[in-house]
């Protein structure tokens, strides 16, 4: 690995801890980011020459802090009325060394850094963009590319999000147990959002967006390292790994979506699956179930099936039942109906869909699934109507292409019969 690639990786891995600590000192996101940036520039000069420091994060925190304090002192001399709040703790050098040795803050530093990105006032897309910029350190250009928007628009989105966060005033005291738990679940939800932003991309954009999935997994592992015994964080990490393990099989060469049953399972990433399964095993031992664990358990049943027909659909049905109780949602019932169709047949599954019709009347997957059940029941005309509706509601060209494939199959199947009728 070249020097710069090596240093890049070191800076990326140290970033959450370093920016988190700098944020605690300066209580201002821009100051913390700038301090980290300055420290990184010095690292690029110093590390190739002097070799890597034993603890890159501590190095970056010390250097970043010193540079920022110098800057603030300098600007104080220029401005007769300094803002005292700009600097929260100006400690002497000795205390800095004590800080370096005492890493006990770092867990809450990183959690706080992640948490400020999921402020409830911020729309989901801004939360994600902010986290990718601040915590992951992706460039605005990289984030813009993943979101398929222009750089200027993304820059604006991030600036706006930062301003909102600054207005909101996040508490800097060490959080209590209850608050820590609340922060943890908000952060977990945001990491899941990042993942979904990458995962729900169509075949044409999947490659540009794959880094979002990888980044989400990195953040989930980071969170789990900080909270080793949290079964829901194990569940979240497992869920992301098990879903992402299938990424190479999810689209065909033309970018069309390949359904689970039709995927080439040899393309699944065995190492990610192994890690996901290991994490679920660990989570189950705690006997504190939660939505991420249940979803991960469902993904695990798919991952464990060597062939589609080996899938334990009865167990998946039960797990979706548990999920329905935890988080009642028509989308979960819709997913459960797919499992029911495999266990009890399409009619029972179709019956489950009826009560959802109104709430999911503009949901692509509802009509896709409904069309598939109707097709299995031989009600081709109704199936065609459902598929037409699905195409009209498709979010990506891959989704539309997939439904068109069903329609083509319908045409082929019904054509000979029509011919005979004539």
């Amino acid at each position: 690995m070249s020097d710069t690639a090596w240093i890049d990786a070191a800076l990326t891995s140290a970033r959450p801890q370093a920016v988190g600590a700098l944020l605690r000192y300066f209580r201002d996101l821009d100051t913390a980011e700038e301090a980290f940036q300055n420290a990184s520039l010095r690292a690029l000069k110093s590390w190739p020459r002097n070799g890597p420091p034993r603890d890159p994060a501590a190095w970056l925190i010390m250097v970043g802090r010193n540079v920022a304090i110098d800057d603030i002192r300098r600007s104080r001399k220029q401005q007769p009325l300094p803002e005292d709040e700009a600097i929260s703790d100006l400690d002497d050098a000795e205390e800095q060394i004590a800080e370096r040795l005492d890493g006990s803050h770092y867990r809450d530093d990183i959690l706080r850094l992640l948490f400020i990105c999921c402020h409830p006032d911020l729309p989901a897309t801004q939360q994600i963009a902010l986290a990718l910029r601040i915590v992951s350190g992706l460039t605005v250009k990289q984030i813009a590319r993943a979101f398929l928007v222009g750089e200027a628009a993304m820059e604006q989105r991030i600036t706006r999000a930062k301003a909102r966060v600054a207005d909101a005033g996040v508490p800097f005291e060490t959080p209590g147990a209850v608050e820590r738990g609340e922060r943890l679940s908000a952060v977990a939800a945001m990491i899941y959002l990042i993942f979904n932003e990458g995962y729900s991309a169509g075949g044409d954009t999947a490659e540009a967006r794959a880094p979002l999935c990888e980044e989400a997994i990195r953040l989930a592992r980071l969170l789990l390292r900080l909270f080793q015994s949290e079964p829901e964080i194990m569940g979240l990490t497992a869920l992301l790994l098990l879903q992402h393990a299938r990424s190479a099989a999810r689209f065909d060469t033309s970018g069309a979506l390949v359904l689970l049953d039709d995927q080439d399972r040899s393309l699944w990433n065995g190492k990610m699956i192994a890690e996901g399964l290991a994490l679920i095993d660990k989570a189950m031992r705690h006997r504190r179930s939660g939505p991420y664990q249940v979803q991960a358990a469902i993904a695990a049943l798919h991952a464990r099936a060597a062939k589609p027909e080996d899938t334990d659909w009865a167990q998946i049905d039960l797990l979706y039942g548990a999920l329905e109780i935890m988080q009642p949602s028509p989308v979960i019932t819709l997913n459960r109906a797919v499992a029911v169709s495999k266990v009890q047949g399409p009619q029972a599954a179709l019956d489950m869909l009826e009560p959802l019709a109104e709430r999911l009347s503009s949901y692509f997957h509802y009509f896709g699934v409904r069309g598939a059940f109707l097709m299995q029941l031989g009600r081709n005309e109704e199936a065609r109507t459902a598929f037409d509706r699905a195409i009209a509601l498709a979010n990506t060209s891959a989704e539309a292409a997939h439904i068109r494939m069903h329609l083509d199959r319908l045409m082929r199947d019904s054509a000979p019969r029509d011919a005979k009728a004539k």
Partner: protein
Amino acid sequence: MLYAILCYHDEDFVGSWSREQDEAVMQKLAVVQEKLTKQGRLGPVARLLPTTAATTLRKEDPPLVLDGPYAETKEQLLGFYIVDCKDLDAALEVARDLGAANPGGAYEIRPVGVLNPGSIPA
């Protein structure tokens, strides 16, 4: 003499490698392994999953099961090699070769007392 070469590295750092970087490092390591294999000196090799996948059993009475690795350290045990070397210098040479392919972190070189080759088919 058999030596275990235990690989310690900051797993945050290793986890920050891009897929291409990871593959490039693995390829370079494979070259070193290939050489040892040809010399008939390479035993089992393992790359361990992240420490987040680890569980620790403390042998108290009753034994205590804890999530995570045995020790919280700056660098984590991420894998190991078993290599046949005539002496420590030869083992250090292997470690240097591996280190050139995968910089950063540290190798602990430990002579093996007993090696049970086990029964898992490769």
